[in-house]
C-alpha cells in the first residue's frame, strides 16, 4: 500500500499533543496504523512534547507524595504487574480493519447498517461514547458515482478504507487521508470498480447552520 496523501503536519501535531476530538483522533490513528512513515512522523512530534515536559519548571509536590506512590505500588503487588511485553497484537491484514477502527466497527464492514443518502451514496454514523460536537462516520460511494459538491463548516478528515476517489486534489486510495479545512470545496467521484468506503470525521456542531446544512443535506441526509 503506497500512501500518497498524508495529514497536514499541523493535524498530526494536534494528535501528538492530544487535543483532537475523539472522532478526528480515531481517523488519524486509523491512518497511522496503515502508515509506517506516518508513525515515524508521530514519534518525532511526540519528541517535542518530551522536550517541553523535560524543560517544564518544577512545581513542588506535596510532602509524602513519593510515599503515597510507593504505597499504591504495594497495592498493585509486584507480581501482577507487567514484567514482560504483552503478546503482539495482530497487525491489520489486507482485508481486516486497522486496529484503532475495530473498536468503532466491531463487527467489521459487513455488519455496518448503511443509511441511503443519495444515488449510490450511503453513510453510517459510528458511536463514540459522547454526544460531542464532532461526528465519526463511514461514507460509501458506489464506483463511478459522484459525491455532491460540498463545502465544510469545519475541518473534515477523510480516510480511504477501500476503493478510491478522485477530485481536484488527485486520486485518493486506500490509506490516503484528505485533510480539508473549512472553505475547501470539492466534488469527489468514486473511481470505477468497487465501492469507495471512507472513514470521515466532521464537525457536527456546524452542520445545522445555514449554508453548510444545505450543502451537506444531500450528502449526509441531515
Amino acid at each position, binding site marked *: 500500500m503506497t500512501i500518497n496523501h498524508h495529514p497536514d503536519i499541523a493535524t498530526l501535531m494536534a494528535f501528538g499533543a492530544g487535543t483532537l476530538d475523539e472522532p478526528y483522533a480515531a481517523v488519524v490513528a486509523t491512518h497511522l496504523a496503515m502508515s509506517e512513515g506516518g508513525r515515524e512522523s508521530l514519534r518525532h512530534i511526540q519528541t517535542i512534547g518530551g522536550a517541553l515536559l523535560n524543560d517544564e519548571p518544577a512545581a513542588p509536590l506535596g510532602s509524602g507524595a513519593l510515599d503515597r*506512590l510507593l504505597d499504591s505500588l504495594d497495592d498493585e503487588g509486584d507480581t501482577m504487574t507487567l514484567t514482560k511485553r504483552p503478546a503482539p497484537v495482530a497487525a491489520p491484514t489486507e482485508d481486516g480493519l486497522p486496529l484503532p477502527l475495530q473498536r468503532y466497527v466491531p463487527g467489521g464492514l459487513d455488519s455496518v447498517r448503511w443509511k441511503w443518502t443519495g444515488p449510490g451514496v450511503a453513510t453510517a454514523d459510528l458511536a463514540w461514547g459522547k454526544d460531542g460536537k464532532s461526528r465519526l462516520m463511514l461514507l460509501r460511494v458506489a464506483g463511478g458515482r459522484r459525491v455532491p459538491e460540498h463545502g465544510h463548516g469545519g475541518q473534515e478528515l477523510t480516510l480511504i478504507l477501500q476503493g478510491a476517489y478522485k477530485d481536484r486534489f488527485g486520486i485518493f486510495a486506500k490509506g490516503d487521508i484528505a485533510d480539508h479545512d473549512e472553505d475547501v470545496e470539492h466534488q469527489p467521484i468514486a473511481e470505477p470498480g468497487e465501492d469507495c468506503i471512507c472513514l470521515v470525521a466532521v464537525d457536527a456542531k456546524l452542520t445545522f447552520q445555514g449554508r453548510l446544512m444545505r450543502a451537506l443535506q444531500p450528502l449526509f441526509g441531515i
Partner: protein
Amino acid sequence: MYALNMTDHIIGRTPVLVESDDFSSLLLRVAEQRDKAALAALFNHFGPRIKSMMLKLGSSEALAEDLVQETFVSIWRKAAMYSQQRGAASTWIFTIARNLRIDQLRRQSNKPYEDLDNLEMASDAPLGSSLVEQNQIIARVTLALKALPVEQQEVVRLSFIHDMPHAQIAESIGIPLGTVKSRLRLAYERLRPMLEDLQ
C-alpha cells in the same frame, strides 16, 4: 554507564534518590527489574514537571497531585511497553501523561492512542538511536525550541503543554485558525533536523 545497583540503596522502604540524567536507563530498570528506586528517581524529576503541566490546564492543586500519582502508576504498569525505539524516556512519559489527560480531563477515549502503541509493540521495526543519542536529541530539541521565534514557541507550548485545541489557541491569542496552523508548520520545519537527528 550508571553502575548503580539501586536496590542496594533502598533503606527500609524509601529508596535513596539516585542522581542520574539518564532517564531512559532508569525506565528500563523499572521495566526489566521492577526497580522502585529507579521509579522514585523518575518521580523526583518528572513528577513536579507533570504537576506544573497539569496546573496549566486549570486543574486544582489536589487534582494535579492526583494526576501525577496516576501518571506514575501507569508508568509502573506499562514500563514493559517502553522500548528504545520509542524514543527518549521524557517523550514516553509525556505520552503517558497526555493519554491520562485525554481520559481524565477531556473525558474522551484514549483508545486510539493505546491501539497505536499496541501496533508499535507488534512491529519488528529495527531499533532507532541509542539511549545516549536519544538524550542528545532531547537536549538539541530543547535548545531548538528556545530558539524558535516567540510567536511559534507560543503556539507550540499552548498546544503541547496547555492542551489547547488549535481553535482555542486562535481564540485565546486573537489570530485566525489558519495562522495557528501555519505557525505550527513553520515550527515543525525548524525542529525537523533535530527531530530526525540529521545534524
